[in-house]
């Protein structure tokens, strides 16, 4: 285990401005010489397990669930406060997780598309950056949210959250649902039950979108966060039942 480091903001900005110049480095080189003097080690007890992180691969698929578990276990002690900092994720995607990022998000041959692609997956600007596009941050945040689900293992929660990209977007990026652990827990538990069935009906785009929309509407009129967990679960269950 080694202490987690991050890049100085100046280095992050320089890398972002220089994507086009460094395209070949992104495709097949490494950034050691470019960032050597810009790496700062975090104080405190935030450790990374290089063995676990080096084990992140896609093997021809996406393997987001497996890799989310590895990120969750391989970065120890990272808090949500720090996990919103782009400097950490940019450091990881340009060092130890450079190869994973290339593998998960292969850089397009067209240079213009490549610049945009790299900007999305190697950096993490704003909420969309950490939740959806940065190759590592999105996995850490998926695990962080899934860890809040009561009564399910982390893996089962991740399966329900990450099984379909559009469902993940509909759940995780809808603030009413993703911020409240009691609502999020209920949704994931119900989705997990559906995942175990042959039909997996609740993963149908129409069903999930309709349910999230109705749930959002209900949460605008009642303070679900102030209710008992069982009551919220029943409300969420009724919503899904009505929509499929």
């Amino acid at each position, binding site marked *: 285990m080694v202490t987690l480091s991050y890049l100085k903001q100046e280095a992050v900005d320089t890398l972002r401005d220089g994507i086009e110049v460094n395209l070949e480095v992104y495709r097949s080189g490494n950034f050691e010489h470019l960032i050597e003097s810009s790496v700062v080690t975090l104080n405190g007890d935030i450790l990374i397990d290089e063995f676990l992180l080096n084990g992140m691969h896609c093997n021809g698929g996406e393997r987001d669930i497996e890799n989310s578990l590895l990120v969750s276990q391989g970065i120890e002690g990272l808090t949500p406060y720090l996990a919103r900092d782009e400097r950490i994720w940019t450091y990881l995607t340009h060092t130890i997780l450079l190869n994973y990022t290339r593998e998960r998000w292969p850089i397009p041959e067209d240079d213009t598309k490549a610049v945009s692609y790299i900007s999305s997956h190697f950096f993490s600007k704003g909420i969309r950056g950490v939740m959806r596009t940065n190759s590592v941050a999105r996995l850490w945040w998926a695990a962080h949210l899934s860890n809040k689900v009561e009564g399910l293992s982390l893996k089962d929660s991740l399966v329900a959250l990450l099984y379909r990209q559009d469902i993940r977007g509909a759940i995780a990026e809808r603030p009413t649902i993703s911020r409240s652990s009691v609502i999020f827990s209920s949704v994931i538990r119900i989705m997990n039950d559906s995942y175990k069935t042959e039909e997996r009906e609740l993963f149908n785009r129409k069903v999930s979108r309709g349910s999230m929309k109705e749930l959002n509407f209900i949460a605008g009129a009642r303070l679900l966060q*102030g*209710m008992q967990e069982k009551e919220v679960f029943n409300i969420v269950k009724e919503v899904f039942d009505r929509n499929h």
Partner: protein
Amino acid sequence: MKFDSQSAFPYPVLRSDNDDYIGEEFSVLYEVSATNELVIINASFNLTCSGILEQIDNEYAIYGLLVTSNETFEQQFFESKESTAEFRMSSQLLRGRISIEPYIVVKKIIENYESLSINNEFGSGLFLFEPGEILAQGVPSSFSISRDFFKPLQSIVKINLKEGLVKGEWSIKLEQDHIIVDVSQHIHNTYTRAKNSKSGQNIMLNSIWFSVIVHAVEVLKKSSDIYGEYVWANVITAKINNLGVDLDSQDSYKIVTTLLNDPLLRLGDIF
């Protein structure tokens, strides 16, 4: 739920900018204190409506605060039966602007609710409230969680070239937000060269930075009341607290060895 003064409810909700209730008030006074470990919100709810107060007294409703950190997707609901309460949450779950929304929320079904203060427009009927519905909504407010914890200790120290100092001379000034280290031209040249390489940084960490932070900790031990308001003092104190170390129970050099993560070990790759 998001505070929206324009939201229409099919039942009366006591709010500051509508007239569902006539002549009644629901407001909250807060005091928020934050360290790098904990945010403590002391809330004092002020409610004049006897009909709603009765529901709280009979445990059909509660005072509540919905605390939300958009940046970290964190939201916690705190509730109290009392009009004054203290709520605590970890600072590390929060970041940036944190919103606080006050409510009075129904916990058990309320049947046949009535209040003389309800606007006549609602008619003379009795009201039914389900759990989760709100009786009153206060004006939201917010506070911020700063990035100080994230700053490395080196960020609170500024190396300053001071003309007139002889070759090996340097001095530390603590009477401002950052620790200023005045150095001679000779030391400044060495420092400038050293900070451009990993090994140079590690040597600086074990020489000048270590000495400066030890001095700062020593001063804090003796007179934290004098320096306590400066940024550097807050950062060091917060980091020490975060490590669970008592400032008075260990020698300064041991505290700083912990704060800087055993810096001597970083010399292993150089020599």
